[in-house]
């Protein structure tokens, strides 16, 4: 009847390292490009996202700045807060990024990605970077707001570049968390529920709106395990004139990158099973 060769043919001629790397980068970019194209078709979405950080800075920030007991080191409270709100908007944009994957699964578009030869890690990194595209556009808005209300912002190219890198990394990290949640819950309703339950504790158990020194010890311990704390810590140093990092920028970047790398591994495994 049917005869199957016992030893299957070897993989098609192994491309050289440089070609493989280029191919991998192209596959990552393919996913990011889709995000860019969609934003180009519907730019209004970005503007509507400006409301939340504006409320935090203009209402919460202006009032809290008048509270005397709130010592925020050598920084004005509003300056201190602006870095926290920047990190917060990155978190909020990124943590809901995974819903697009559930949407794609429901429609069927997911199969277009999964049936392709692109390594699952390339697809997952592409998804994460897509989240950071949105996060960066948020950052532009927060910077504009902060400048308007008179926050003392560092505008030297190196500092701005550092902020871009840190936001990209942070958004990638939280987008990947989001993707993992999406792979676990698989329905939009449950995803929204978990996303909302998750964001507030992550936000409040961090140094985003109050300094670590003010926290009770238990909260400080939790906060030191929270990646958002390192994001905010790095942003304060890079974004603000006179801003200082508690942990040091190297630690901030290293912690975020380390967590991101582990998450990519987990997400790649789970994403490949998302189509079942």
């Amino acid at each position, binding site marked *: *009847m*049917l005869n*199957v*060769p016992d030893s*299957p*043919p070897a*993989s*098609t001629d192994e491309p050289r390292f440089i070609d493989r790397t280029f*191919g991998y980068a*192209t*596959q990552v*970019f*393919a996913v990011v*490009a*889709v995000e860019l*194209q*969609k934003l180009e*078709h*519907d730019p209004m979405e970005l503007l509507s996202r400006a409301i939340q950080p504006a409320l935090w800075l203009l209402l919460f920030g202006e009032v809290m700045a008048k509270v005397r007991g709130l010592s925020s080191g050598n920084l004005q409270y509003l300056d201190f807060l602006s870095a926290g709100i920047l990190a917060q908007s990155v978190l909020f944009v990124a943590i809901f990024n995974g819903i697009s994957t559930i949407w794609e699964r429901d*429609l*069927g*578009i997911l*199969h*277009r*990605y*999964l*049936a*392709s*030869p*692109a*390594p699952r890690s390339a697809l997952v990194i592409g998804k994460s970077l897509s989240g950071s595209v949105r996060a960066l556009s948020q950052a532009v808005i927060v910077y504009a707001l902060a400048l308007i209300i008179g926050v003392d912002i560092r505008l030297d190219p190196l500092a701005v570049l550092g902020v871009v890198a840190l936001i990209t990394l942070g958004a990638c990290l939280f987008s990947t968390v989001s993707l993992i949640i999406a792979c676990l819950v698989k329905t939009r309703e449950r995803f929204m529920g978990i996303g909302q339950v998750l964001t507030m504790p992550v936000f409040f158990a961090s140094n985003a709106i109050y300094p670590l020194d003010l926290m009770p010890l238990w909260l400080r311990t939790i906060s030191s395990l929270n990646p958002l704390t390192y994001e905010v810590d790095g942003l304060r140093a890079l974004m603000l004139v006179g801003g200082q990092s508690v942990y040091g920028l190297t630690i901030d970047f290293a912690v975020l990158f380390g967590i991101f790398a582990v998450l990519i591994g987990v997400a790649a495994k789970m994403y490949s099973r998302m*189509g*079942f």
Partner: protein
Amino acid sequence: MDNMSSHEIVVQAIDLSKRFGTFTAVDGATFGVNHGEIFGLVGPNGAGKSTLIKMLTTLLPVTSGRASIAGFDVERQAADVRRHIGYVPQLLSADGQLTGYQNLLLSARLYGVPISERKTRITRALEGMGLSEVADRLVQHYSGGMIRRLEIAQSLLHRPAVLFLDEPTVGLDPVARRAVWDHVRLIRTRLKTTIVMTSHYMDEVDQQCDRMALIDRGRIAAIGTPSELKEKAGTGATLDDVFVQLTSGTAELEGNYRDVERARLAAREHG
């Protein structure tokens, strides 16, 4: 697979099974598809057609048995298999928020079509599928038939050896169905692509497929050319008769809520 002879078996499944818990969706399927053939997988809702296709396209792990595409094992050489196949799922797989051109560009990048060839191949694909004029329009404004043709074009950009079409004409009106088939036949003649498809429109299977397998409750109930199967069922029998004779008759009860939901969703997206 340029050096493939015309009699070579391109798709092979041997005792292929898939179990979900205690439920056996595909039960020991053994069949081969020859190079250049249009091969139909036919059966009632929930018979296991889509599960079978998902295993062959590496989207679902195999429970037992084995399968190979163009000589590559679907389990051990999944990435190689993916490079050699095109897959058009039953549900919508083109992105409505992108233009037709952008959808094709996405596929070209994911499948590693060289930059130097991308533009030419995309332009040709658009022409071949009669979509040149709507290339820059958002796909959400396409008709169902246009979306299907775009999806087929997306699956062919990397010149796969085998094209899998899962219910390619579900939810389409007769005119759109005919247009889709005209293009599929053209692909077979021009590119010599082997095509494996599922359908539950018997007339389509009868007209389009060189050979077919009738699947019932996860098992292959019959396999052969449409005329062979009709002969077996008796003089003057249609494929519908074959279908009724060979399937368990409880077929109608088999489609569950999720199948219905999926079929309707697909019909809505493509209709």
